């Protein structure tokens, strides 16, 4: 079943076109990796899926992006409700300069998910457990989240995102600021999260794409060159450009 369907998506930054006619289907409860050289538009495409491009004044998006068969690019789409369903993890861990507890309780609070203090405590603990962070921080959840290490901060951001139970989680190079051990922990986590969420991950590391994803899309110069199962893309790509990128001839 397709969770997300993108049809004829074009993106412009001012006069410069960043994405050309992207058509891509994303399967539910799978990890889809977006790979490609720097500046190829994979992050831009990712940001189309929760309308984060709205933040950029000069950015114009056209085309259809359907999530659960609903076109999110309509004028009257409520972006607040969209982003409640489609969470996002950023390249650099960006916890709020508040306590660990407040970082996680923020989402449920603004969306009115928890009815009582004990319910909120449960959500915080459950989210931290799912992000494999609970054991490390359970004694200091009222200390600042910014005091954690880089890998812990990124898992805190993941816990923050899953606290409101989004259906889709977008990850924009979530491990690029982390060391190999923290990266391994996040990758393990991604595989776990896939049971409940649909995950789309942008990555620079082809080995990471191969390790964590079931499907892969290859972007080059704003175009989606090839998309398919990760196995097929890495072992038997149909396009020459994909072949060249995978084997390290460019990028």
């Amino acid at each position, binding site marked *: 079943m397709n969770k997300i369907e993108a049809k004829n998506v074009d993106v412009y930054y001012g006069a410069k076109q960043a994405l050309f006619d992207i058509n891509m289907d994303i399967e539910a409860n799978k990890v889809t990796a977006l790979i490609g050289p720097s500046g190829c538009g994979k992050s831009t495409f990712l940001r189309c899926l929760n309308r984060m491009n709205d933040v950029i004044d000069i950015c114009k998006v056209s085309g259809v992006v359907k999530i659960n068969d609903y076109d999110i690019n309509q004028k009257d789409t409520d972006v*607040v409700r969209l*982003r409640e369903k489609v969470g*996002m993890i950023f390249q650099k861990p*960006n*916890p*709020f300069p508040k306590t660990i507890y407040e970082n996680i309780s*923020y989402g449920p609070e603004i969306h009115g998910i928890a009815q009582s203090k004990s319910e909120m405590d449960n959500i915080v603990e459950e989210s931290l457990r799912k992000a494999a962070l609970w054991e490390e921080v359970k004694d200091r959840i009222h200390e600042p989240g*910014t005091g954690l290490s880089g890998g812990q901060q990124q898992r805190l951001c993941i816990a923050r995102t899953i606290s409101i139970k989004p259906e889709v989680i977008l990850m924009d190079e979530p491990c690029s600021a982390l060391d190999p051990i923290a990266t391994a922990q996040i990758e393990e986590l991604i595989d776990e999260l896939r049971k409940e969420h649909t995950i789309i991950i942008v990555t620079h590391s082809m080995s990471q794409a191969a390790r964590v994803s079931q499907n892969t899309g290859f972007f080059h110069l704003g175009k989606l060159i090839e998309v398919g199962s990760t196995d097929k893309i890495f072992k038997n790509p149909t396009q020459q450009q994909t072949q060249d990128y995978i084997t390290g001839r460019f990028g």
Partner: protein
Amino acid sequence: MNKEERLIKRYKAEKRFQFYGKAAIFMALLFLVVFLTKIFSTGYTAFQKTWLVIPVNYNADLLYLDPDKKPTTEDINDADFYEFGIETFITLDPDASEDQIMELKKMFAFTFERELKYYLLDNPDSFGKTVDVKLTASDDLDQVFKGNYPRDIPENRRRASDYQLKIFDKLNEDGRVISEFNASFFTNADSREAELAGIASSFMGSLFSILVCLSIAFPVALLAAVYLEEFAPKNRFTDFIEVNINNLAAVPSIVFGLLGLGVLLAVFGLPRSTPLVGGITLSLMTLPTIIIAARASLKAVPPSIREAALAMGASKMQTTMHHTVPLALPGTLSGTIIGLAQALGETAPLILIGMVAFVNTIPGTPMDPAASLPVQIYIWAESAERGFVEKVSACIMVLLFFLIFMNLGAQLIRHKFEKKWN
């Protein structure tokens, strides 16, 4: 030139550069030391006040009161202490001529009537007895006692006559001239007599002006800054506004004074000489300073925090109110305090809206006429009496203390509430 020589030259250039830097700092400190030394050496005597302790006979006949009955408060209030005072002064020199009696009177502040009366009210038991009473010396003798008046110049160029000095020296020998902390400098309003003039009116005037200024400028500036920085589209119109806010910050303060005069007083008919009008005028001046500080602090909040909140499904306003503004508040507050400190030292606009008037009452609300500290300095600096010279310096000290206090507050807020990210 070989490599070795070039290296030596480079080291020398660096040494020279550091020396220039140190010299510059030394110059700045030197100016500060000279300035502060001058102020303190001129002004510290203003915190001391000279009193003459003279024997006073609270004789019933002299006061035209019934000697057999203890006088009530009303009796004392109705009694004539002027004549009584003159009679008392004559006891200092029983042979005094008419002219000399007037000179004796002028040795004391004109409040001697009140001082004699209040002593009796506070000590009803002294009725019918002779007691020592402390009376404020005139500012001329005050200055003589503090050594600010040379005594060796011809009498006709001196404000204290030979006769007054003779009596004064005799009192001094008897230990009847005392110098005490000048509390009235802080509790009295302005006065034409230097020995009685105080800063209470101008201090309250400054305080009220600053409060009015803060309560108008801060919310308006914060809202303007938040809207411009977080919500307004970036286009030519907002650029135009930004340029004009920066221009506004550079407008000479006297222009704002004219605006206050022309609009607040003339058009809206607000009461002149009041801290209300002063505060509104100052808030116009402070507004751009706070807007610029607030915008700089908002800009300094990393965009990743905004993205994090937006990606959590927070609306634009929630993102701003829950995250951006609280993080920008310490910087905004310290900018506000610096803007207020600037407003506190402002003189020109206040003179134009009439806060330069002679005010001898202490204002109770921002709607009462008042002076302000810098304007008080200006008024006193224009006065001829020697007694006001030290007051000017003392008033500057109070103003400086106020400013240092505010700037320390700004530093404290910055250090205490500044949040670190990553």
